[in-house]
């Protein structure tokens, strides 16, 4: 190969069109998202795991008691994603955050849709916004936005 020749190259695209069975617990959570509700599951110690899992991630006890939690909560931690990842649900720069919803003891990963990182802070209150068309998928949640403070609070 001479120095001047451009190397040969070939693009390869591998696609995996997965459809995953949810089972009862994750299925109920996804059904809830479609109905604009967020469900968690009660842990042995009374805490609530959101999003819910079939087994406790710490004790591995089977979990069965599902309950609805608030659609608002606090940002436990956050980072800023710019540019947005190509396959993510978002096509604009956004915060990625762990959000602990009121009534939950664990936090869930999702986007906070604000204009810039200067709008973000740990502990800020956020509330969910929803897609118009929902199918039962984590991206039925468009993301979270700053909660509008109530005048009497």
């Amino acid at each position, binding site marked *: 190969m001479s120095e001047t020749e451009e190397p040969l190259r070939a693009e390869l695209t591998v696609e995996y069109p997965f459809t995953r069975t949810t089972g009862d617990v994750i299925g109920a959570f*996804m059904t809830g998202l479609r109905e604009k509700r967020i469900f968690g599951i009660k842990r042995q110690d009374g805490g609530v795991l959101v999003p819910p899992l079939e087994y406790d991630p710490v004790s591995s006890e089977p979990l069965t008691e599902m309950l609805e939690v608030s659609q608002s909560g606090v940002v436990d931690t956050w980072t*800023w994603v710019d540019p947005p990842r190509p396959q993510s649900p978002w096509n604009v720069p956004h915060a990625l955050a762990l959000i602990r919803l009121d009534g939950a003891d664990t936090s869930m990963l999702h986007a906070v849709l604000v204009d810039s990182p200067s709008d973000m802070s740990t502990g800020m209150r956020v509330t969910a916004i929803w897609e118009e068309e929902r199918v039962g998928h984590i991206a039925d949640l468009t993301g979270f936005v700053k909660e509008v403070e109530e005048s009497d609070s």
Partner: protein
Amino acid sequence: MSKSHNFRDIAVISVASHQTKILSQVNEVQLMADLISRSRNSAGLKQEEIGFTCSGSSDFLAGQAFSFVHTLDAVGAVPPISESHVEMDGAFALYEAWVKLQIGEVDTALVYSYGKPSAGSVIDVLATQLDPYYVSPLWPDCFSLAGLQARSLLDKGSISLERMSEVAMRSQKNAFDNPNGVRSSEDISLDDLMSEPAIADPLRKSDLSEIADGGCAVILAADNKADSLCDRPAWIKGIDHRIDSHTLGARDLTRSPSASLAAEKAGRNSDRLDIAEIHGITSAQELILEKEFALEDETKINPSGGALASDTVMASGLIRIAEVASRIISGQVDRGLAHATSGPCLQQNLVCIMEGK
């Protein structure tokens, strides 16, 4: 590990590794043929004299199913060899080989691993390891998740941006003498690093590992075999790996209990450590690990520059073991800790403590 179990003495007796930003002149098979033969030659072994061969690599990274079979061309697998593979960093392949040697049926093992992230998007590949219902469909990249972790540490007050940059600076300066160091600098200053903009807020570019192509091969031998093949084997005094939950929101991201427990089980506390090669993909992760391993000033941390200087997915952990072992074999140090991680935010951790006799 307890002495009452009659463990065999097993040592790393030779290592070979290579890392570079983009591997353009050779493919993975050619790279590994070179590294494997170098490691075997320096141990004075032919492939037919090696009892067990174990490798680590990722098919999603290679874009090819069962890609490791192709790489066996680099080993010389005919007549048929006793062989195994893990879809994990080579450090975990080394653990499997160590167990095989403990069973006592073989006295020598070849362990190798490699990755060529330049051929695709390692960021997307790593996103596919996450919870497929709740997390992976959001395609978070590994550095953003590590950014969440770093912010938790900053908010808690357990680290500072300055401490992070000090770690980044340590990496670049230490990597200067390392031929495999992809990002290095002899004279980088703290001010230089602290003036960089955040790219996975609060992490700056220098806080993130430098992604590199490369591979590593290691030869293990047991008991007298190790002594007969190597003047100063790096004896594995303890090795252990542990795992935390994959549920990010249920973990305290400021800690890595699995790293701490693996270190304890590997015998971290039994003697001083001259060096520690720890595997973090961010400066903040190195700070978590320093704390989990209770590393003190007497321990030189990441003399190679660590994974921050050159991070080869699937090989960075095995390279940490090789970095410690080679310094023991050469007589530079007596005792060191090597660490490998896998999964998001230090979820899975392996600790290997080695010493020269």
